[in-house]
């Protein structure tokens, strides 16, 4: 149990060990530890952010889905409405067309009737002339009596 030079030798080697540890061992290890803890913290934060994003995206997706459903319903409704309208329009058109055709046909018939009447009238006047000629036995001056005959024909 002698105190001797070993004391100094130990102190010196201790100092050298501490110096080496301080210079070459501690800094890289502690730096790595800090970096890893930062990495982990970043990772956790990223995970949090991602789950938040996911939630947001899900919400967005459901909203879009809802909107598109609404849109689709609206479109279908519009289409239905439009179809009904088209049917109605077509009906109206058909009715109008039918009416127009009937009117046209009626007008034509009336015209035909008129034309036939005219023709009959003309023939009546010719017949009247011929009858009168035969009755009178003489030639009637057509020019002189045509006025009378036409008047007659008009009255028919």
């Amino acid at each position, binding site marked *: 149990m002698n105190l001797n030079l070993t004391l*100094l030798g130990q102190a010196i*080697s201790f100092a050298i060990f501490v110096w080496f540890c301080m210079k070459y*061992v501690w800094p890289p290890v502690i730096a790595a530890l800090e970096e890893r803890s930062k990495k982990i913290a970043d990772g956790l934060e990223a995970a949090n952010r991602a789950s938040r994003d996911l939630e947001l995206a899900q919400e967005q997706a459901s909203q879009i889905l809802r909107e598109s459903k609404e849109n689709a319903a609206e479109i279908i409704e519009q289409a239905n409405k439009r179809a009904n309208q088209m049917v109605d329009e077509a009906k109206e058109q058909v009715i109008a067309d039918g009416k127009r055709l009937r009117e046209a046909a009626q007008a034509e018939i009336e015209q035909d009737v008129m034309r036939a009447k005219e023709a009959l009238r003309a023939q009546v006047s010719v017949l009247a002339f011929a009858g009168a000629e035969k009755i009178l036995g003489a030639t009637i001056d057509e020019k002189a009596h045509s006025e009378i005959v036409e008047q007659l024909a008009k009255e028919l």
Partner: protein
Amino acid sequence: MGIESPTASSYIKHHLQNLTYGQHPDGTWGLAHDAKEAADMGFWAIHVDTMAISIALGFLFLWLFRKAAKKISTDTPTGLQNFVELMVEFVDGSVKETFHGKSKVIAPLALTIFVWVFLMNFMDLIPVDFLPAVAQMIGTSVFGADPNHVYFKFVPTTDINATLGMSLSVFALIVFYSIKVKGISGFVGELTLQPFGKWMIPFNLLLEGVGLLAKPVSLALRLFGNLYAGELIFILIAILPWGLQWALSVPWAIFHILIIVLQAFIFMMLTIVYLSMAHEDH
């Protein structure tokens, strides 16, 4: 020059003697052949065994930790890196808990103390005759020494020089930081003006001086005492008949696992506490 069959007391004394190199009273340099010669060498002698083992263990510590530190990665740690990170994190936590100032020295200092002291203490668990027997073989066959004069005390922390060497270094750091943080006047003031004010300066100085000096002395003696006692008990157990030794040495060794870690931890913790006290202004 055969090996004398030792008596119990000579066996114990042999195991408690360091291998000492120094100057004999007659002026020649060499190894001491017995305890008296070693004592006669006075201060200018060196314990070869303590130095060799402690430096080897210091290199082992630095080599291991440097190896891990060089290829440290921030990915999933494996093997040695795990162990090193565990130690560094543990020491860093202890330092941050106690020491609130900023210092680049204290944490590596604490790590060095903890691991180095632990390794030196760990030597205590090696059976008491293994390394001395190896040393004796080398001493007799390589250097032609008398086997009875080859001493080898292989637990550095059972040498008061080793523990006191460390604690005095810590003491130097305490004084250095006290002066650095508080200035010379602050440090002197702390020693003289407390606890009783300026009319009691001599008494204050005595009180505070004892308190200051007690730090390194208690630090060194606590570690030395624990390990010396532990080693002594291992030596005493080794005197028993060989068939009985395990019955005592195994429980004592298991208990000692606790002691060696605890003492390394206490040395480290007290160093941190003393240095943080040196950093604090009263």
